[in-house]
């Protein structure tokens, strides 16, 4: 079977799920004839018609709210945020309505909110964000953020089938840069399970999305130049976190570096560090370190963006200092 890109993998999942279940439908801005800003939904309207591929007004609140209402009635809507940065427009209805609906009113919201996320693409402050931390903090929402094409497809299928709201972050830098052959059959990646992206014994890097690839590059360098064996955990799901995977790798290598593209303060790395501290302090040979973006809005100019975001060299440097501790 031929390799397909991360983006095509998402599209394939949408096609297969819409074919499998008549309750699955898509809504978003410019997702119909135009196929979406990044062409993720290209071809869907031709196949499924405008009743199931709905071009919406520029209304993120209405999209998320309508998805919730349709979900209550048994539909399984997939909403596209043209850029995940615009999820902030729907913050109220997502956190106050959707996230609480099952708990407070026994109303299920089986829905997916997906969209292109992340930087390294010269997108500037409003087309480069990683706003996952705000939603991880909200009980009632699930958050996934795949790094590989296989997981992009498998997690999308799992998200659509999940009985609660799943926020599906897609990394736009990875859209056309990573490829893979899809596993045969009905390929579903379970939500809540991390993946070992690389086995190692000297230190662990816990990460997700774009920085999985930067960590893999760093691991190569560290092996070649320092003889270090680095284990890399790709979280894949950010809420619920795979505590077992975090604990297992921590107790195996005794040194942990947490890496993410999101900004530092209040970012997921802090939460992971706290959990390691609570469960595995006695196993640690060094303090848990973080490599993250700087706490600034993401700037446009290459020299600025590259300085703000974590790079492979930063991971190498941090890993060396962790190994030497």
């Amino acid at each position: 079977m031929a390799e397909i890109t991360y983006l095509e993998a998402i599209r394939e999942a949408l096609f297969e799920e819409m074919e499998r279940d008549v309750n699955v439908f898509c809504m978003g801005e410019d997702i119909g004839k135009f196929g979406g800003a990044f062409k993720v939904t290209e071809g869907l309207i031709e196949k499924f018609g405008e009743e199931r591929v709905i071009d919406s007004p520029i209304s993120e609140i209405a999209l998320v709210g309508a998805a919730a209402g349709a979900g209550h009635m048994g539909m399984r809507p997939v909403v596209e945020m043209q850029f995940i940065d615009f999820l902030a427009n729907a913050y109220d209805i997502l956190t106050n309505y959707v996230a609480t609906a099952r708990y407070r009113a026994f109303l299920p919201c089986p829905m997916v909110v997906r969209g292109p996320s992340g930087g390294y693409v010269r997108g500037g402050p409003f087309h480069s964000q990683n706003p996952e931390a705000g939603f991880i903090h909200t009980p009632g929402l699930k958050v996934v953020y795949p790094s590989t094409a296989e997981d992009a497809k498998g997690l999308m299928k799992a998200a659509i089938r999940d009985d609660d709201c799943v926020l599906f972050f897609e990394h736009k830098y990875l859209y056309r840069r990573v490829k893979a052959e899809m596993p045969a059959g009905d390929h579903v990646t379970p939500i809540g399970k991390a993946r070992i992206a690389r086995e190692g014994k000297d230190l662990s890097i816990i990460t997700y999305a774009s920085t999985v690839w930067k960590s893999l590059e760093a691991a190569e360098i560290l092996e070649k130049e320092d003889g270090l064996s680095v284990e890399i955990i790709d979280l894949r799901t950010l809420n619920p976190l795979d505590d077992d995977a975090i604990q297992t790798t921590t107790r195996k290598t005794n040194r942990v570096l947490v890496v993410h593209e999101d900004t530092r303060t209040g970012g997921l790395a802090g939460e992971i560090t706290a959990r390691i501290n609570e469960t595995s302090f006695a196993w640690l040979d060094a303090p848990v370190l973080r490599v993250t973006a700087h706490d600034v809005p993401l700037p446009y100019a290459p020299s600025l963006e590259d300085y703000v975001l974590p790079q492979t060299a930063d991971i190498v440097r941090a890993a060396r200092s962790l190994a030497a501790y």
Partner: protein
Amino acid sequence: MPRSATEKPAKTNAHRPSPAAHRAGGDRPSAQLSREQIVDLYYWMRLTRTLEERLVALYRQTKVVGGLFRSLGQEADAVGCAYALERRDIMSPLIRNMGAMLVKGATPVEILKQYMAKGDSPTRGRELNIHFGDTDRGFIGQISPLGDMIPVMTGVTMTFKMRKQDRVGLVFIGDGATSTGAFHEGINFAAVQKCPLVVIVENNGYAYSTPTVKQTAAKQFVDKAIGYGVPGEQADGNDVLAVYDVAKRAVDRARRGEGVTLVELMTYRRKGHAEHDNQSYVPDGEIERWATENDPLTRYIDRLRDDFSVTPAEIEQIDERARRVVDEATDEAEKSGLPQALDALNGVYADPPAEKPLWFREGSASVVDQHERPVGWGVFDHTAEKEH
């Protein structure tokens, strides 16, 4: 002394809020209601008021553990709208639409248990007041961030359309919440999609303490319909039959596939935002004027007597029935206890079904187990304060 049934009532619009704006046109579906249904409308309004009066008593006895929200003077708009719906239709009420929920099948005992935070209340003690729903009976509970229910009901009715079901949705919104972004986005999307949705704007004069003149520069809320390209109608919200007529026309339009209608109902909030609110911001005499000249129940009793030959004895029987229902419901609700504390950790997600207790709570069923008296909760000592 009651006038005889044959004597024509003084039919005046003088006490109505905005007679000139009463541009609701077309037929009067209420003419099709049977006498039994006409009387039934009164029962639901009376039940609403009696139940709320009971809730006030329970609130003063501190048995209602949170805030209490009244719909005094607005019973007609809630009841009349819900009466225009079929059971299969879905409605989203606001805090002042308890009457609409009763019509749609919510029971007084459920409402009492909600207010008293009982473990077997519809939300098992998780939500307050009338914030609860049941899609089988056809109502979805609102949430406190106002306006959000419009997009949600857009999705509900979009589903009806996609599935080609003969069902409609009706959503209430207050004058205040028409200023939210959610209202605008929701009604606009529903209008574009031609969803079978009726949007009821209850104009009761105040959003908490803010009068409508500070809420919008529009002369009337019904004018907003033009901007969304949907029909708009305005009606006297304190005339239950006028409410039923305007709501039924909108519901019928939606059912015929003609999309969204915006309805503005003119009414008046005679109590504060909640029971704690002393309404100091209301001009002198305003509340009294509405109470004496434009009470929806008093007006309807007159109407029933004059146009439908309903006797005072019949009215008294209905009032007695409402009292009995509320008495029985109160006895029933008081029997239940508070929820088991550990139930707080269940059902955030379908999977996993429960959160684990944090380590410092492991092995204890409640906070009370750990501290015989919660740390830091003293009795407020007024004498001590004076000494400072």
